[in-house]
């Protein structure tokens, strides 16, 4: 398989314009003859479905939730980046592009990232026109803030609910098209297979989550916007229904999976409180602007924090990184937290957390100032933990937050299956090995509003499509496979629940494919995951039947897929014996313990081709060329 | 025009009808109470003169009565509609019910509007029958005030409220009215779209106060008469 990224010619500033000028167009009168299937209704999916319907295509939109408005984009708190340069602080498309490539630790495609930066401004315009209530200053113009250590203020936000507001904007655009009769909406539907006919993606097969019926839908192109796969770790900041199933089933039909080992860990999450825990909650990393991170100097010091004197505390980030201190990047902060906990200096009942202390900030600025800045976060913390962060330090611990890897796509967002496009977090395209804060929302909307409307026309106009209905052989075969897999899950009737297996897998992933990976650990887990998968298929207990709403059956299918994906993540992590971005290999670090990239060996995208469950997948490499950005090793000393 | 009709029939429109008719009757009730308080002053003449004056309004009185009757009928119609809508909207009720507390304004009053309303309606029928259409000049209830011969309504009232069952009945009806109005007043403003974060709490409390004052005003009359007879 040859990976052709189809990057346009010309200087980077003109690549997208060049591509747009060479794309084939679909005649306005012909658009209604094309059926486009859009799976997922998050930022990418909803914006794509709405935009395509506005253009005149027939769109079928699918989501697993009871309403498209509940897709997990809704939980994004911080904001969305754009190169508007309203604050006049030196931002530009170039700088946003540069920061994103650098932030991604030089493992992303320059051309994609540049396009993302270029289109970022259109996103803000579009969202404002939709009535998204972004924060404004007293003059009535849009407010910006600096986010995630960026040196310019380019982040637009709507209180701490930016993702929600942007999603509701896209959702309302989608609802408008449903009202206009241009979109058919299918809620509580889970895609379980993509149907490939004559080498092209032509439809999907999936389960109606209410009735259990297997349904088939035919189209001329299929768009997946089904989010990331962080829930493979069981505990993550993802929603409990977030899953890899749609992307994974596409992978099994021939779509290459790129950079699966690139996962982002967020340092300021509320720690785990016990075995019952079902998810982790993130708090904005802006907390680190005023909070000081510390643990006791002595191992196993179980005194309450206020009884540990100043000279027996270790403000380890300030000590190790004198110039950045508590504001080191996410991955550095996360890794250090895990390191001190592994040393036995973690705090809290579980020993798996570190203090984030606002006592100095409160002394310096007064409680009122802190309340104004972080009141909602403090309240959230207290709500979840029952501890008052004004009177004692918060406890935090890192958690899996975002996955940069995903299905491989070319510059036109098409996967290795012709006609199968992948958008948003589900693809691998723009964030390299690490995503900058406030860039996920930007990418999702950019793909959906401004890239796919062009790209899909080129594909549809450039291909001919045979008449196909849902009784075709490809659909029959897919239907049978989907059904037999569901039956098989129900038939095992073993001793352990789906939740048991998900947790076990999550622990393995967290331990060996989490913040720090080593050859030894990865090799070990590469035998443990298949063993766990084997056990799952022999001993899982899925209650109920296929013929009704059955959450455990849904989860069983997802966990079964995670058990396959986990292995691929470990394999990818093992293969990439360098450290970059969110992927830290213990063997590849500088003397100071910093991530050490190996540009000569690993300047490529790893795209894995599926060869069967348990079979070694084939690695394809897409070389990354950097013509505009000079590669540097980061340092936060 | 079609849109106005359908708007009136909508959930918003019905509530506007309810609040407008409610406010009309609210205004009437205040006037009625102030008028009735004359029963407690200056013997029977003051009250009889007042009653005679009202009858003397002739066409104007009929017009006012028609407006009140229409208001009442529309108010009842919307109430029935709302209760039926409520039953249809929640065919299966909760096994356990509760309230979230403040800032909810759900009270005993707001939850029993239909019951207090029915009580008031029953009262109204009896009340009108026993006084407006009760014994008059023909039955010997005649008096002369300032040389003018007129119905001695005062005597009828005094006689009626010498009977404990009438006093108790009236007292119950007036408590029901007070409860009804304590939710009704602010609710009418809200249904008309008149909400302001500063003034609504005032309207809410003024409404409760007015409801109390009105109920009390009506309530003291039969009690007073029962214990102290004609002033």
């Amino acid at each position, binding site marked *: 398989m040859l990976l052709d990224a189809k990057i346009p010619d010309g200087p980077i500033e003109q690549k997208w314009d060049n591509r747009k000028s060479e794309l084939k167009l679909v005649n306005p009168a012909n658009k209604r003859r094309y059926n486009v299937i859009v799976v997922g209704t998050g930022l990418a999916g909803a914006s794509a479905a709405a935009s395509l319907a506005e253009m005149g295509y027939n769109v079928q939109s699918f989501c697993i939730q009871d309403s498209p408005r509940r897709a997990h984009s809704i939980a994004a708190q911080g904001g969305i980046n754009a190169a508007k340069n309203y604050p006049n602080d030196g931002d530009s498309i170039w700088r946003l592009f540069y920061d994103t490539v650098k932030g991604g630790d030089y493992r992303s495609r320059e051309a994609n990232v540049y396009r993302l930066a270029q289109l970022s401004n259109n996103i*803000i315009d579009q969202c404002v026109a939709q009535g998204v209530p972004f924060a404004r200053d007293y003059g009535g113009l849009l407010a910006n803030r600096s986010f995630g250590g960026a040196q310019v203020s380019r982040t637009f936000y709507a209180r701490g609910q930016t993702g929600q507001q942007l999603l509701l904007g896209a959702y309302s655009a989608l609802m408008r098209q449903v009202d206009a009769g241009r979109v058919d909406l299918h809620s509580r539907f889970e895609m379980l297979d993509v149907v490939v006919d004559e080498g092209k993606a032509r439809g999907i097969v999936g389960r109606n989550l209410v009735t259990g019926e297997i349904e088939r839908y035919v189209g001329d192109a299929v768009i997946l916007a089904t989010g990331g796969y962080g829930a493979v770790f069981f505990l993550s900041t993802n929603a409990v229904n977030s899953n890899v199933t749609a992307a994974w089933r596409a992978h099994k039909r021939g779509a290459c999976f790129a950079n699966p080992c690139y996962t982002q860990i967020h340092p300021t999450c509320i720690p785990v409180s016990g075995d019952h825990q079902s998810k982790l909650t993130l708090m904005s990393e802006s907390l680190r602007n005023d909070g000081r991170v510390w643990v006791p100097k002595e191992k196993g010091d179980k005194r309450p924090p206020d009884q540990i004197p100043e000279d027996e505390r270790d403000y380890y980030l300030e000590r190790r990184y004198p110039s950045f201190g508590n504001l080191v990047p996410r991955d550095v902060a996360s890794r250090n937290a895990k390191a001190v906990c592994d040393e036995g200096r973690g705090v809290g009942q579980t020993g798996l957390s570190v203090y984030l202390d606002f006592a100095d900030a409160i002394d310096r600025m007064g409680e009122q100032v802190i309340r104004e800045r972080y009141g909602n976060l403090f309240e959230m913390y207290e709500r979840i933990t029952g501890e008052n962060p004004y009177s004692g330090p918060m406890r935090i611990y890192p958690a899996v937050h975002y996955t940069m890897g995903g299905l491989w796509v070319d510059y036109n967002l098409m996967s290795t299956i012709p006609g199968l496009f992948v958008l948003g977090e589900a693809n691998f395209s723009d964030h390299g090995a690490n995503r900058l804060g406030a860039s996920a929302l930007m990418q999702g909307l950019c793909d959906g509003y401004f890239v796919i409307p062009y790209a899909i026309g080129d594909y549809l106009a450039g291909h001919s499509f045979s008449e196909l209905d849902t009784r075709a052989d490809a659909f029959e075969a897919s239907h049978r496979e989907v059904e037999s897999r569901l039956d098989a899950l129900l038939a095992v009737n073993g001793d352990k629940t789906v939740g048991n297996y998900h947790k076990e897998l999550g622990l393995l992933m967290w331990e060996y494919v989490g913040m720090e990976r080593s050859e030894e650990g990865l090799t070990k887990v590469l035998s443990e995951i298949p063993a766990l998968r084997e056990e799952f298929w022999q001993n899982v207990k899925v209650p109920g039947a296929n013929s009704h709403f059955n959450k455990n059956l849904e989860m069983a299918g997802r966990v079964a897929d995670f058990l396959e994906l986990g292995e691929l993540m470990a394999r990818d992590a093992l293969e990439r014996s360098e450290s970059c971005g969110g992927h830290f290999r213990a063997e590849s670090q500088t003397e100071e313990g910093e991530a050490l990239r190996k540009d000569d060996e690993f300047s490529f995208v790893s795209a894995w081709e599926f060869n069967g469950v348990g079979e070694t997948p084939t690695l394809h490499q897409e070389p990354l060329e950097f013509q505009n950005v000079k590669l540097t090793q980061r340092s936060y000393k | 025009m079609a849109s106005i009709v359908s708007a009136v029939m909508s959930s918003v429109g019905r509530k506007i009808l309810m609040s407008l008719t409610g406010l009309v009757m609210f205004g009437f009730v205040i006037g009625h109470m102030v008028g009735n308080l004359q029963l407690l002053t200056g013997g029977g003449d003051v009250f009889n003169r007042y009653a005679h004056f009202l009858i003397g309004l002739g066409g104007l009185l009929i017009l006012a009565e028609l407006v009140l009757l229409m208001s009442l009928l529309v108010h009842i119609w919307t109430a029935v509609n709302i209760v039926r809508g409520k039953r*249809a909207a929640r065919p299966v009720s909760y096994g356990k019910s509760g309230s979230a507390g403040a800032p909810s304004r759900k009270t005993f009053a707001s939850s029993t509007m239909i019951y207090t309303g029915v009580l008031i309606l029953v009262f109204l029928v009896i009340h009108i029958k026993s006084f407006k259409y009760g014994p008059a000049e023909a039955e010997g209830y005649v008096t002369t005030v300032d040389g003018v011969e007129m119905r001695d309504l005062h005597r009828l009232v005094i006689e009626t409220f010498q009977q404990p069952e009438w006093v108790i009945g009236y007292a119950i009806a007036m408590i029901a009215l007070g409860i009804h109005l304590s939710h009704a007043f602010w609710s009418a403003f809200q249904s008309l779209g008149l909400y302001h974060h500063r003034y609504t709490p005032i309207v809410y409390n003024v409404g409760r106060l007015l409801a109390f004052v009105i109920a009390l005003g009506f309530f003291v009359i039969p009690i007073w008469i029962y214990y102290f007879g004609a002033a």
Partner: protein
Amino acid sequence: MTLNLHIWRQEGPDRPGKLVPYKAEDVNRDMSLLEMLDVVNQDLIKRGEDPIEFDSDCREGICGMCSLVINGVAHGPLNGTATCQLHMRHYRDGDSITIEPWRSQAFPVVRDLVTDRSSFDRIVQAGGYISINTGNAPEANALPISKVDADLAMDAAACIGCGACVAACPNASASLFTAAKISQFASLPQGQPERSERALRMVDQMDEEGFGNCSNHGECEAVCPKEISISTIASMKRDYVKAALTV
């Protein structure tokens, strides 16, 4: 701690349901209520019984998926809190907890505690948007919007569409949900061109779905996880009347 649960079980939309008692043992006070149900379900599955179906997704109070009436109060006893953010430390050993689904004709029960809230989507389809096609937008800062108006719009836009307002309303009215969307756009200049039509269509759709009338109990505001004010309902009524008289 040990808790006595009474949970609504119903096999399907047209099947009768009933409250079934369960005992939740070894409940950790740091668990969320949903995690407590997760644990109860694990035991049920191991015993070969059907687990209790309930909706939840983000479990951080923003997606609006979770939807339980707990001891008669939608989303439970804490103000401004969705079910998923309710922790067991608010209960004591031996407490009884009754858990029921949202009850509304417009939210039919799918199974147990899971309901179908697509009626909300249809209300939004009837005008809960600003008609702007992708690519047609003017420069974002070409239109200044006063901070007061933007904040007001945001207060209303915070709605998570959970349906607690309907569940809590003694009349099962969807006024707060519908009003939040109408008033969000009414506060913004972008919302003006379609303001009248939006109010008319969305209210009509709300009625058509079979929600009850608003009787101004204000229970909706008290259970709303985002504490959206019933001032939005008044605003909706003003818009509706104005539209009905002028359109």
